[in-house]
């Protein structure tokens, strides 16, 4: 089945008439996934939106419960609510790979996060492949591929003027069924693009295990501002804080995005902070992305979308860091050399 790009507008209108629909679009000088409606110009030509789609499943601020106090009495009401079905149209394969990572975090390892789960189950992801990966894209050597997205509900393979439409899940099949009036029979040759930028991840997770004291961390610490940009534009960074808003005798407790780059991220009551130095926070971020997460969930936490490289005010480049780790000597050899 084919979808002519020129006719995508009609399909989007039809989807939006049924349920909430999110598309990549410009928004006041930045870009993100916005609710489709009158006047919205989808930007399917954008490689990556400035802000990642993670807020659709894991909002930047999300109320967990409300409480009210009346003297000694306390009332607590959960803020959990079911989510109506919605479609995200035009996601990139790297962003889809990031959803896989969020799924692993919030839906496995004991506890299921029902706030996330409700949104995840309501979501249909329609992924458009990338015909022309950007210069900072390196998904195909770390986590994904510009031309496939195995966990997407529907895959739209870019074939120039049209997309080749392939449902990949049951949810996707029923979606495509409903799209039939807007699709055309036929075949087209999808563009199987590859990223120019490559990293060699093979040995990185293992090598990092011996690099806790490597000078690389102080070098990156010198360069890094320890602002939270990389963590907020990253589609997979999921760490959050739990805090509250108080108005007199009532309030709400919410979770909000947090960043391992911030000093107050690990500061404990009483003043002890296990990661007080810039170096230790930088190490935590890259160790988490490239080895800790692999140990726990068997995949990299970096999907190679390139957002952090593009937006970092100090031009910290995760691909260069991976290169340096890949090129470093394993710790045992270094020790052996030191003893020699």
């Amino acid at each position, binding site marked *: 089945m084919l979808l002519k790009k020129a006719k995508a507008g009609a399909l989007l209108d039809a989807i939006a008439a049924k349920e909430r629909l999110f598309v990549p*679009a410009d928004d006041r000088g930045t870009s993100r996934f916005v609710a489709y*409606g009158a006047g*919205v110009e989808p930007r399917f030509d954008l490689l990556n939106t400035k802000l990642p789609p993670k807020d659709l499943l894991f909002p930047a601020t999300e109320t967990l419960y409300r409480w009210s106090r009346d003297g000694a009495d306390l009332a607590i009401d959960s803020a959990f609510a079911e989510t109506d079905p919605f479609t995200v149209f035009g996601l990139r394969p790297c962003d889809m790979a990031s959803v896989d990572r969020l799924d692993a975090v919030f839906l496995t390892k004991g506890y299921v996060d029902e706030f996330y789960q409700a949104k995840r189950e309501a979501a249909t992801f329609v992924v458009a492949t990338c015909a022309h990966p950007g210069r900072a894209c390196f998904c195909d050597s770390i986590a994904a591929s510009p031309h496939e997205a195995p966990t997407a509900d529907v895959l739209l393979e870019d074939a120039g003027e049209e997309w080749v439409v392939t449902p990949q899940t049951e949810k996707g099949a029923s979606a495509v069924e409903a799209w039939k009036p807007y699709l055309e029979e036929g075949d087209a040759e999808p563009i199987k693009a590859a990223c120019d930028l490559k990293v060699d991840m093979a040995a990185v997770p293992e090598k990092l295990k011996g690099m806790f004291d490597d000078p690389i961390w102080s070098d990156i610490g010198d360069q890094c501002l320890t602002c939270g940009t990389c963590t907020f534009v990253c589609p997979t960074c999921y760490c959050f804080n739990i805090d509250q808003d108080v108005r007199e005798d009532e309030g709400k407790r919410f979770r909000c995005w947090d960043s391992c780059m911030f000093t107050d991220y690990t500061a404990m009551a009483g003043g002890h902070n296990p990661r007080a130095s810039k170096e230790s926070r930088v190490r935590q971020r890259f160790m988490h992305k490239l080895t800790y997460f692999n140990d726990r969930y068997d995949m990299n936490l970096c999907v190679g979308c390139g957002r952090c490289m593009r937006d970092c005010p100090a031009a910290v480049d995760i691909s260069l860091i991976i290169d340096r780790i890949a090129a470093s000597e394993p710790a045992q050899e270094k020790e052996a050399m030191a003893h020699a």
Partner: protein
Amino acid sequence: MPRDNEQTGEFTPKILAFCCNWCTYAGADLAGLNRMNYPADVKVLRVPCSGRVNPQYVLKALQSGCDGVLVCGCHPGDCHYSTGNYYAKRRMMIFKRMVEFAGLSPERFQIRWISGSEAGKFRDTVVEVSEQIRALGPMENDAPSRAAIDAVAGTVASPEADEELFAAAKEAI
């Protein structure tokens, strides 16, 4: 939280007045002793000196439910600590211009010098500020109109995104 007077339906503002301990607070005290009437909209918060009022208190108050803030201290030259209000004056002049530049109604943040003997001036100031803020209505009224938004906003992605953003802005300053 209900802010309209239940009987009259009239809007009763919340105004926070930072009053210096040595002059304005004494002036407020004297106004009380002389049984002067002034609106109960104003909640007096005693501070050691107008120089103690960190401008961030003002913005915090406006964001936490106050409809107006008044900062009062000794007349320049009369500061109990000799210079505190001179510093306060410079700071508040710049801060006031900054928050007004950012779109706050000027009446919502005012600074006055009121001495310990000026009970009448305290009463008059409070009446004046209270009337001005009653006329402005609650803080939410400071939010921009649709026309103002359209005049300055960049390319808006969608009406819905737009609504979300400005609904949050309407909650307080």
